[in-house]
């Protein structure tokens, strides 16, 4: 994890690769080379990556088991839709408001619950996630249980690409800094971390707020892609879906979370052709992975430039 030298050539190369990737997909979408079916899956993939990577910051790096991620996604989705649909503000205002509102919700929920540990924290966050959903169900302004329909489709590939990229950059840079090491030390040994001068409560809340903020971003993107939002979309099963990605990818591995998000989105899409046995197959695959690779696909390792270079250059 030592990346202390700034290299302009590498930076330029990375930007070039990203621009090429973006342009290629954009071209495929505009020319309808990529059918709508694949486009939808690509978009879900991006949203799931944002969700999994941000939850991994809380569950994997900080070691705080949170089961309320869908709640923050709901906050983001609803706030952004109120901005664009009800107040006729531009999409960017909706997205920013979604991030802020979700971060605020994360702070309000995080401060009291992060005193709890392990299972207790999991249950408390699960409860808060459900509270958010039930509150939304009872507000007529946002349509109550039937939600809001007719949301303009504003989420473009550009938005998804940029959002996913920003999420990844922020979380990877955070984790690979002194602040990130402070966050990880909380997971490793809270007592020892405190005695090394680290205000563990502050870093737990920090990770929780940042994680919630990106869940809000994912919510905003989701709402403006799928035309309709209703409270039930963001129930605890959604939180579990995200958790499954994080655990499958390996707690504490950002690349693991990305790979798992891609894997699960693809799996869900592929299994749509077998509606009757879909859930059984899905569960079976997860069980098999957990038996043969309980630490998750990546463990707590990252796949970085070095690993890619090694794979590229053959065995070494």
């Amino acid at each position, binding site marked *: 994890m030592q990346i202390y030298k700034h290299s302009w050539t590498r930076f330029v190369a990375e930007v070039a690769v990203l621009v090429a990737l973006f342009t290629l997909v954009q071209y495929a979408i505009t020319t309808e080379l990529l059918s709508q079916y694949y486009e939808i899956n690509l978009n879900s993939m991006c949203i799931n990556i944002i969700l999994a990577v941000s939850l991994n910051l809380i569950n994997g790096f900080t070691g705080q088991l949170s089961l309320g991620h869908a709640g923050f996604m709901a906050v983001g989705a609803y706030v952004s839709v109120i901005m664009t649909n009800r107040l006729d503000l531009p999409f960017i205002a909706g997205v920013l408001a979604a991030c802020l509102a979700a971060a605020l919700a994360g702070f309000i929920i995080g401060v009291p619950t992060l005193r709890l540990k392990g299972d207790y924290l999991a249950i408390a966050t699960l409860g808060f996630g459900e509270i958010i959903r039930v509150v939304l169900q009872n507000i007529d302004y946002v349509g109550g249980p039937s939600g809001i329909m007719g949301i303009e489709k504003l989420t473009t590939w550009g938005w998804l690409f940029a959002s996913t990229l920003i999420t990844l950059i922020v979380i990877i840079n955070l984790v690979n800094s002194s602040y990130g090491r402070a966050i990880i030390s909380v997971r490793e040994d809270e007592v*020892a971390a405190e*005695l*090394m001068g680290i205000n563990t409560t502050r870093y737990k809340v920090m990770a929780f707020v940042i994680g919630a903020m990106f869940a809000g971003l994912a919510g905003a993107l989701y709402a403006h892609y799928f035309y309709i939002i209703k409270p039930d979309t963001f129930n605890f099963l959604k939180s579990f879906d995200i958790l499954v990605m994080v655990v499958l990818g390996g707690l504490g591995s950002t690349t693991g979370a990305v790979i798992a998000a891609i894997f699960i989105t693809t799996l869900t899409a592929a299994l749509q052709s077998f509606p009757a046995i879909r859930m059984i197959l899905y569960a079976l695959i997860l069980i098999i992975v957990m038996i043969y690779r309980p630490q998750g696909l990546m463990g707590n390792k990252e796949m970085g430039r070095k690993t890619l270079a090694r794979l590229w250059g053959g065995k070494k």
Partner: protein
Amino acid sequence: MSLMEIKNLHKSFGGLSAVLNFNFNLENNELVGLIGPNGAGKTTVFNLITGVYKPDKGNIDFEDRSLVGLHPYDICKRGIARTFQNIRLFRDLTVLDNVRIAFHKDVQYGFLSAIFRTPGFFRGEAEMEAKAREFLKIFKLDNKRDEIASNLPYGEQRRLEIARALATRPTMLILDEPAAGMNPQETQELMQLIKWLRQEFKLAILLIEHDMPLVMGVCERIYVLDYGQVIAEGKPEEIRNNKKVIEAYLGEEVN
């Protein structure tokens, strides 16, 4: 004026008084031992000093300011570092990261600087790594800096824990049974290391230890604790011949 002065410290858990009327003082650059039978309350005293527990009564002054009620991380910032009886390293992290975390309280760059990878970030990280490697060199762990802490042999884990504690730049170092589980050869080396550290870093050291040759060999003064109370205090040779101490360890003579 003493570096640390503890007056009438009390701590009980339910009906059990773990520490009773504990009085203690420590001068700058002094090396003091705290001994006593198992369950005498030694580690509780350490936990009270470092803020892990809050005292029921009494006061702890460090550099003339009270430590009571401060969080452990604030106490660390005031200049007290410790190791643990049962090693508490950041087990899944590398040796280097274990030490670098100790520098975080003085981190030189801001949060946004880390996210945006500003030049300040690279400078700060390079500086932290250089300092961490300096500490690892002192403890002969530099060649193992990329190893995962839990993979180190026991003696090296102990050394790493001391390195990590020292990396917080304390004026007072608290060692909780540093020689536990070490063979006589390693204990001997540890004794030299403790003496040397105290000179080199101008430290005051407080240590709990069951290994009597070590305690008698390095400590200038010794406090003996039994049932939460100080039963004796003095130079090693005074303690060695103290009747109460012998009773506490071996029991009374039968007539």
